[in-house]
């Protein structure tokens, strides 16, 4: 059986205070009515960096600080890693930079903006702000990026490459990205909400308190997600995640997903082939934050000591499955 990894801290930023996914142990930070990212809780030096940073970095710093403080990381800085999942990363920064370049020519190219046109800028700022000098990985797998990041973080811990990993998903939304989603026909059913979710993951046995444990994970791909036979990639990911957790799929107690309506048939075929017929608990789409937020909601709401399955299904074809155990009853 592969090692299960403890979730020891969580920080989230959501758009809606009533979002049920805010009901995890650490509470949630809420984006202001004016769209401002909550930064007031950050230490002064970090806040000063955050104020100058791009939006996706602000979201990750806000969530990451809450997660790190909640867990109380005690490992040396070189033993703390970061794994961030993001579907679109610096898309908004790219648009801001490119618009100035197009309008003003090379003289309009902004060094500050260009430096943030890498999707790992948010992870880099988090590393600098909290002196986290272990492995730093940013991964994109469409709207399955958040679960992909949590899975990769589990592997970093299993391989002994870090003692603690801050991991999760984040995407910033705005005009250019909303326009592109429409133009590209990438439909999530409901418009995605902006959110960030950062979790602190550690090897069990050295932790003070747990929100739950991640026991298995897998990502996969649907080459033709809208096709009549689609579902094999997700079924494979579910089976692999359950095997990783040393569980038989029918043992899963709760399924959580934000699968777009157009892809529910795909999801149903995959679930019937693995877990069996069931009705997933539906959450709101939040791009890369979807899966991590769904996991936190399940850990907070499901009965103690049960296995939950969190799914991400993206119209791009990316899929992910993650199996976690809720905390045992006290």
């Amino acid at each position: 059986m592969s090692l299960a990894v403890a979730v020891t801290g969580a920080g989230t930023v959501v758009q809606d205070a009533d979002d049920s996914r805010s009901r995890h142990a650490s509470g949630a930070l809420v984006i202001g009515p004016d769209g401002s990212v909550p930064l007031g809780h950050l230490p002064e030096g970090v806040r000063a960096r955050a104020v100058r940073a791009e939006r996706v970095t602000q979201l990750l710093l806000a969530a990451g600080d809450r997660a790190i403080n909640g867990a109380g990381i005690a490992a040396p800085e070189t033993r703390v890693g970061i794994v961030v999942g993001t579907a679109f990363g610096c898309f908004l920064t790219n648009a801001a930079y490119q618009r100035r370049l197009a309008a003003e020519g090379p003289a309009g190219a902004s060094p500050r903006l260009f430096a943030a046109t890498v999707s790992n800028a948010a992870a880099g700022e988090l590393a600098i702000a909290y002196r986290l000098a272990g492995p730093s990985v940013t991964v994109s797998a469409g709207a399955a990026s958040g679960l992909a990041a949590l899975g990769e973080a589990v592997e970093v811990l299993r391989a002994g490459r870090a003692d603690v990993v801050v991991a999760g998903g984040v995407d910033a939304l705005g005009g250019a990205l909303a326009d592109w989603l429409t133009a590209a026909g990438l439909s999530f059913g409901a418009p995605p909400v902006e959110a960030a979710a950062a979790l602190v993951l550690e090897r069990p046995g050295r932790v003070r308190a747990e929100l739950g444990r991640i026991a298995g994970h897998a990502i996969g791909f649907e080459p033709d997600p809208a096709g009549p036979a689609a579902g094999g990639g997700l079924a494979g990911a579910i089976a692999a995640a359950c095997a990783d957790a040393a569980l038989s799929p029918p043992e899963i107690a709760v399924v959580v997903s934000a699968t777009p309506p157009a892809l529910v048939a795909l999801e149903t075929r995959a679930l019937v082939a693995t877990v069996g017929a069931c009705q997933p608990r539906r959450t709101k789409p939040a791009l890369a934050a979807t899966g991590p937020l769904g996991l936190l909601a399940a850990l907070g709401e499901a009965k103690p000591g049960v296995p939950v399955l969190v799914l991400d299904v993206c119209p791009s074809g990316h899929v992910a499955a993650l199996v976690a155990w809720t905390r045992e009853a006290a």
Partner: protein
Amino acid sequence: MITGCGVVSPLGTGLRPFWQGLVAGRSAVQPIAGFRADDLEPRAAAEVRDVPRTDLDRAGAFALEAATQALADAGLDPPSVDPGRLAVALGTTLGGMRLFERWLDGDAVDEIERVPYYAPAVRVARALGCGGPVATLQLACASGTQAIALAADWVRTGRTDVVLAGGADLLCRFVVAGFNCLRATAEEARPFDAARRGLVLGEGGAVVVVEDAAHAARRGARLRGSVLGVGAAADATHMTAPDREGRGAARAIEAALADAGLTPARIGFVSAHGTGTPYNDAMEAVAITRVFGPRNVPVNSIKGAIGHTLGAAGAFEAVLCLQVLAEGLVPPTAGLATPDPACAGLDLVYGEPRSHAADAAVSTSSGFAGVNAALVLGRAG
């Protein structure tokens, strides 16, 4: 195991022209011809000249061509592989940026879904019918290296049998103007040279087939080498400048060596990141000397030949390492004539190729936001 390689480079398409160009010390850096560059300064780059420009998704086109080559080199036909056990791990820093530029300018753009960073991996996965893990690594200029590292992890942990792993990136106004405005560029790439002034950008794609050893053995595959170890570490100091002491880069190399179970003395070649910027090369000299000791291992950089290909760079350099190990020959560092005294700790290969038998090599990459990643690659057989 690595059982296949595919290359789309400014030196040519295919492993042979890439390798022959490197051994000859040839540089593909020329004035930019593929897009408007008259107002860019500098305006030199290493462009891929033999892939049609009509396909605006150049990174995707490079990745697909390199992946197709790699599969053929491995003797693999996609239908012969269980789709659920066929995976893609790609690095890129720009993805569909040419499409993005056009779309943001208000032009009608075909295949607009290929704008995101994850799009090249999706294009490869759809074209080849992959149903296993598909991921895009976003570690700036270390993306290609980390993609191969992730592929090796997937195979080692039994998640998949065959991974198409590597990187692809493209040249466009967005990126050339960006590096120019950071004052990081020069007209000529001269890695580790006393007169180096900055990097020159390049483009292309490189993909290797990372395959489970038992899967490869069952089909009698020819081996091109192996991934023996992987490592990564963050500087956590600055968003664009490397740590002057090279601590993150050194820790990434040390982690890869530990993962491989090898001491530094077992490494016979180091492919440096070697961008040609004053800070990067000085940092790497410190890091490599710290790990390997002074002048104990031959070092080169291929960025004088093919430019800095960003998210593809680490993949090109992994292919280079496999060739060095297979051929017993280290290509010279194009553009290097007078080594910087600050890099005196490095046994730099320049001027002529050097015959040098080795069993294992290290490829190291670093990037924006303080990321560092390293691979230890082994010779086949």
